[in-house]
């Protein structure tokens, strides 16, 4: 992709525009510099273009597989209602980048 014209044509074919890339980055809370937007766009579009082939699979009436169990009838186990955890504020807070007494500190959130 050497020449500017080719780059432009290439980008035109892409399904995701830069606004969408910015929106995704914003949803994912990942800061993207302007210089990174186009690179992310090229890479993500490359991958999405390759993923497109899934659309050719006939999936009419197929029950989607959620979860990783090889056994289709997997069901959740339920635990008894007993207090077995907690009482460890120090351990909970030990790794905090900004511990404020018995709390986690963050920049003030305004509603």
């Amino acid at each position, binding site marked *: 992709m050497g020449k500017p014209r080719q780059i432009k044509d290439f980008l035109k074919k892409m399904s*995701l525009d830069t606004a*969408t*890339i910015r929106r*995704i*980055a*914003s*949803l*994912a*809370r*990942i*800061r*993207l510099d302007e210089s990174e937007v186009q690179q*992310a766009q090229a*890479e*993500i579009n*490359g*991958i*999405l273009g*390759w*993923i*497109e*082939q*899934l*659309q050719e*699979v006939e*999936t009419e009436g*197929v*029950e*989607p*597989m*959620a*979860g*990783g*169990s*090889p*056994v*289709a009838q*997997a069901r*959740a*186990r339920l*635990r008894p209602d007993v207090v077995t955890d907690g009482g*460890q504020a120090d*351990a*909970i807070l*030990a*790794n*905090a*980048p*900004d511990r404020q007494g018995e709390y*986690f500190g*963050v*920049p*003030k*959130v305004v509603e």
Partner: protein
Amino acid sequence: MHPTDFTLRGAIDALNEGTISSVELTNAHLDGIAKLNPRLNAYITVTAEKALAAAKASDERRRQGTVGALEGIPLAIKDLFCTAGTRTTAGSRILDSFVPPYESTVSQNLLDDGAVFLGKANLDEFAMGSSNTTSASGPVENPWSRANDPDTRLVPGGSSGGSAAAVAARLALGATATDTGGSIRQPAAFCGIAGIKPTYGRCSRFGIVAFASSLDQAGPVARTVEDCAILLKSMAGFDPRDSTSADMPVPDFAKACERGVKGLRIGVPKEYRLDGMAPEIVALWEQGLAWLRDAGAETVEVSLPHAKYALPTYYIVAPAEASSNLARYDGVRFGMRVTEPGSDLRDLYERTRAAGFGAEVRRRIMIGTYVLSAGYYDAYYLKAQKVRALIRRDFEQAYEKVDAILTPATPSAAFGMDEKQDDPVAMYLNDIFTVTANLAGLPGLAVPAGLDGQGLPLGLQVIGRAFDEETVFAVGRTLERAANFTALPGLRAGA
């Protein structure tokens, strides 16, 4: 014999016979690590003092007559398993200083059986990669090199590249690893060792940093099939703290290794005969089938018609789950935080996650966020789940005809550290043979089976029925015996 040359089984026997102590065994491995790790970078964190203390305690227990299944055996733990009091990074800057106050169930099971932990093995960041070049702690080097090109440094595969390199270079008798799309089997194949991803639910995921919850499974890498069987027996088991953990008894896998394959039907998926596949890989595959026939198995062609959609399916499901699993790394409760003067919370999130995650992780989070976002969910995620169901059904139908399936482990031998790095899709193709087992939740074992023209190891893969690791081990052990793989990497302890 140098203590690092023991297989894990051999070391257990030597310890039991009293010809070596855990302290001696541990010291020998720590010496090897001191010498080779600066180059291989297989360990992110070496816990030499803790290891020696654990070895001493193990020798003491042995004197008292308490001998666990892995009593005194030095192991490497992939730095994706949380280890109480020992830094756990997941190969990411964002967890650079994270010291978990809890132990993963799998590593705890190993500790309970008497194992000694040498340190935390390197990996691709958050287990995302097939080359172990995305780690914040730097790339891992494969201890093997090309016969005619010894100066080109090769990748060990990924994401469990540190685990595989450490075991291949004799810097551990075995290691824990995890496999989301091939992260045990591909590095095992690249490093000339064995590795098994068991059935989904066989090992607890509790305390393992999550990448893609419905695909992640822990398993061992070791230098022999039997060593993998011994380790898996220890690692596996029902855990009430993981709702997806299978409440099933854990068989004696080591015993199953010696079952042989007489009368077994081995499936050969015709769709795996890819156009342009390396002739060496095709030949190895044929050889593997011949070995199994020689040992009394019947080989049968089967069809997995949706297998060719496995990789794109995987690259929807895995990033989607990852985008959600990695949302917790936000700079509030643990890990790295990046702010500027005047940063509000949103700015804190965005700066922290931009700086804390590497390029591949950011890329997959973005893809995962996109495929789940409003208007695209049905076209991508739901579609992928349906194709995934079809892939699982393909296997179910195949297993009506066969007892196990044989495929190559990887489409090539280990590649150079600078190769394939600029094209994500080319990199993703590394997992083409392994990823179906993750999508279907099935056990898959990689066995070193031969060398390519450059003298690099190549592996075969055995995929079994759900919860039938025993047959997988029996087939794997038969292949291992027939292949008689004795080649050694150039870089190894005691060499």
